[in-house]
């Protein structure tokens, strides 16, 4: 039979799973908004944003309570420390998804630009990273951590290339400046979503291995450190 402390830890894990799923949905909606015609007024998206914010606060409260009352040590301590950080990262992802949706509405002729600069690839890759990040937290599978870092690298490189091309396009066709600028901002947002996911992967690594790897340079082999 689980002790009451184990039940509290399970509860915390479930709340983080919930917030992760909400953020995954928000990222999905943002990619949909970017790659298709805008759908509806986004009431569901707005509601989910509020839910994410509330869960973020709830996680802070749960962690504070556990720290104060249970004095967790070892793997439990690492889990609680990581939980607070992960929640923070997920909340930022949620905010970025909302920003992408808002920007996407303002990109004229976006289908042409998206095709021209291979934006769909990047957006879908970020969706995959988000799914893998949630999986990684739930399963604590170290191989997924490596996959997330590799995918993030690919996103960063592709995004750099796309931004370079968009800037050149804007230089030669002034009519594309507004759309081009919005698209560059969207790409930077997508990059940030991907980076937040790698941060979460770093915290999962810390949970498993008790090693802090944030700020270390990644050469594709970070998960082996």
């Amino acid at each position, binding site marked *: 039979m689980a002790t009451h402390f184990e039940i509290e830890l399970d509860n915390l894990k479930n709340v983080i799973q919930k917030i992760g799923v909400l953020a995954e949905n928000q990222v999905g909606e943002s990619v949909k908004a970017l790659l298709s015609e805008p759908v509806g007024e986004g009431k569901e998206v707005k509601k989910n944003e509020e839910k994410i914010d509330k869960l973020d606060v709830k996680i802070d409260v749960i962690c504070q309570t556990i720290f*104060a009352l249970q004095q967790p040590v070892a793997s439990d301590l690492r889990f609680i420390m990581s939980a607070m950080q992960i929640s923070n990262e997920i909340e930022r992802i949620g905010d970025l998804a909302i920003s992408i949706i808002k920007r996407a509405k303002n990109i004229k002729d976006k289908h042409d630009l998206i095709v021209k600069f291979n934006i769909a690839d990047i957006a879908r890759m970020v969706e995959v990273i988000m799914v893998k990040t949630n999986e990684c937290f739930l399963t604590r599978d170290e191989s997924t951590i490596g996959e997330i870092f590799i995918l993030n690298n690919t996103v960063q490189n592709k995004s750099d290339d796309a931004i370079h091309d968009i800037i050149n396009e804007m230089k030669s066709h002034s009519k594309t400046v507004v759309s081009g600028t919005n698209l560059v901002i969207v790409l930077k947002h997508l990059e940030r979503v991907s980076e937040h996911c790698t941060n979460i992967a770093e915290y999962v690594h810390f949970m498993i291995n008790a090693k802090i790897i944030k700020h270390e340079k990644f050469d594709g082999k970070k998960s082996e450190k």
Partner: protein
Amino acid sequence: MKDLKKDIKIEVNDLSLYYGEKKALNEISMVIPKNKVTALIGPSGCGKSTFLRCINRMNDLIPDVKITGSMLVEGVDIYDKNVDVVNIRKKIGMVFQKSNPFPKSIYENVAYGPKINGIKIKTELDEIVETSLRQAAIWDEVKDRLGDSAMGLSGGQQQRLCIARTLAVSPDIILMDEPASALDPISTSKIEELVHELKEQYTIIIVTHNMQQAARTSDYTAFFYLGQLIEIGKTNTIFTKPEQKQTEDYITGRFG
């Protein structure tokens, strides 16, 4: 604690206790909620055990003790001269720091109280013994040796046996005076988990000098210092944002 009106088990009003001329408890007023665990913390000599013993009138056994004020258990002042103190001690059981099983068998330890209260039928006694040992989370460890001497049990088992013995007479309230301070960490953890389970049925008040234990096990915490109640509140609040600086200083280890 203002939201607890209908869930109050014990109400203490201006309770003071004197050992001769020395005032050991100074006008304590508090409520203890029903079916919750209330922890009493404070430095050595602050009066927490003295206060605990007021609840089941164990201080009556100490010569030269005088008590003023009132202590109402479900509305009845237990210090009223018409109150049967034996009945109080049946309804308000106590577990001590040092486990004190009787030098009898495990079975007899638990059956002793019910027998004294007039239960003679073996099947009834068997049921009470099993239920009490199960509630005290020790049944599985002793069910095949109920006839063995209780003195052969480990310290942690003896303490759980003492809890079973307390439960056998169907108390409403269980007082625990540092029940785990003499036990190893595993046994301590079992006792703490048991406290969590027992509060579903009983009101529990626990004295502990181990603040972390108070934080882990209790719903409410009362901080005593030099015979005074400094602060009482939800344990979560006491250990995250206490109102009184003295409380903050004590729980952060700055004094005591």
